[in-house]
């Protein structure tokens, strides 16, 4: 069985909510089940095949989205298995609540990507918006598993209230990166915005360059060797998730510990060039 390629019939118009358009739907009910899904666009509910042109193609069992100029929200939301490939940009909520499988976005994605993600992999070739791996609006917990790799830059509040998992941003991160973080790992290849790790309890933020000022509530623990960085480098390099700006050898890093204003023992590790 080949995959299915979905191309919007009408690019102009309000965003299409892609919640429920998942590979396991294709695996369970075939193309017919997929075509009959009801999707929300603007004020109306429409059959999927009224909004998209469906063609066979792509990897077996996978969904290939070719959004063109259309805005697609909730791509891969709640996905548990399989693969979705987006040949373009995504709107908001890409991979939110994901529990497994792989979502590959060849362009940019909007806010709340990987929000409350619990498993699986999200790979974004372009930039990601705000709230990457953060809680959904009204939620209390951010990402709790899985891995996110953003090749470009990311917005504000990435990894907020994150509990487990990995977020790698090869480029810059906005403000409040790792705010209220509970655990897990965030790696940022370029500069971070202000209020890094605000109210962070545990977890690790890896940086290649020191923030302009010591983050509020953090204390400077000095430099040392951190052996786990070698394990992490090996693991992440294989998956293309070790930021380009990070050193390729050595385990030395300066450690900032915080946020002590909330009794946090999280850490910001600023990796040293060998």
């Amino acid at each position: 069985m080949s995959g299915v390629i979905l191309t919007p019939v009408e690019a102009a118009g309000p965003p299409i909510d892609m919640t429920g358009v998942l590979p396991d739907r294709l695996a369970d009910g075939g193309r017919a089940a997929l075509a009959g899904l009801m999707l929300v666009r603007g004020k109306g509910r429409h059959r999927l095949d009224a909004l998209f042109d469906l063609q066979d193609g792509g990897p077996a069992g996978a969904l290939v989205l070719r959004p063109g100029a259309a805005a697609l929200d909730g791509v891969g939301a709640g996905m548990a298995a399989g693969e979705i490939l987006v040949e373009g940009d995504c709107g908001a909520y890409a991979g939110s609540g994901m529990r497994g499988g792989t979502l590959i976005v060849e362009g940019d994605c909007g806010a709340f990507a990987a929000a409350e993600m619990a498993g699986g992999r999200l790979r974004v070739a372009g930039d990601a918006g705000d709230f990457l791996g953060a809680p959904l609006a009204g939620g209390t917990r951010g990402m709790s598993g899985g891995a996110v790799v953003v090749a470009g830059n990311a917005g504000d509040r990435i990894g907020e209230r994150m509990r487990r998992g990995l977020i790698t941003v090869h480029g810059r991160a906005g403000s409040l990166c790792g705010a209220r973080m509970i655990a897990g790992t965030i790696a940022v290849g370029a500069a971070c915005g202000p209020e890094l790790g605000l109210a962070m309890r545990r977890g690790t933020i890896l940086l290649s360059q020191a923030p302009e000022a010591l983050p509020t509530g953090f204390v400077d623990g000095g430099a040392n060797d951190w052996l786990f960085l070698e394990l992490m480098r090996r693991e992440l390099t294989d998956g293309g998730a070790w930021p380009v700006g990070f050193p390729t050898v050595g385990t030395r890093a300066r450690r900032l510990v915080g946020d002590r204003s909330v009794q946090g023992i999280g850490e910001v590790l600023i990796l040293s060039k060998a």
Partner: protein
Amino acid sequence: MRLNGVHIDDTFAEAFPMLGTRLVITADTPAWVQAAVLSMTGFATSVIACGCEAAVERLLPPDETPDARPGAAVLLFAMNKAELAKQVGRRVGQCVMTSPGSACYAGLHDGPTIPLGNALRYFGDGWQIAKRVGNRRYWRVPVMDGEFLCEAATAVVEGVGGGNFILLAVDRRAGLAAAQAAVMAIREVPGAILPFPGGVVRSGSKIGGKYKGMIASTNTAFCPTLRGTVPASLVPEGVESILELVIDGVSADAVAAAMRAGIGAVVGLGAAGGVVSVTAGNYGGKLGRYQFRLHEVMA
């Protein structure tokens, strides 16, 4: 069976199921690896009195260790999972964590597990950090030279303990030379260890003894100095020295391969090397689940 002039007795080694695990210990230099693993595997010759049997399986070059530093693979065996967990926790805690620059990783990942870092993390007094890398979980415990990195758990395998063979030589020098040749050969076999000092036992034992409370006592049948004194002595004329090699392995195949390698090395020296015969220790086949027949091993 006679190989290169050495008589191979038509008997078998009797061995027992044991639970084992493999740990990978790394450090900054090979010398510090040795320091850690020698300490960790010390007083681990026999479960009878030591709680576990342990030894270095092989030394590892940096490209074979998780953190790209020199290391060693260590195998530990005990009679049950609880005892193995206790021994692993104590030995890693007292001998590896204390050794400068060390780190400890699981060497087995499939099957049921026992705590490794999960038991030692409390030493961090609340400052320890759990870190997941890929599918594995580690504990980072702050210590005085930086941080002790330890994998959270290690898998347990049902192995075999007590594989053995006994070599009878014309004198002590010939016996020791043959035993050392066997040790060198067995150390090349993956999945098997020789838990006794230098890999060799000179005080083989029999079950019980004349004194109350003795679990084991000297193997009088194989004591050359008691030939003619004890009934049923198994020491032939012309034999002055007898040494035993005890082998534990992660599987029966590993033990058999180790026995084959060791006996093969002894036979390689031949009768000209002063080895008269090779036999094995057993309890009549009534106690151990595994029997390694020497003729089948060397077939």
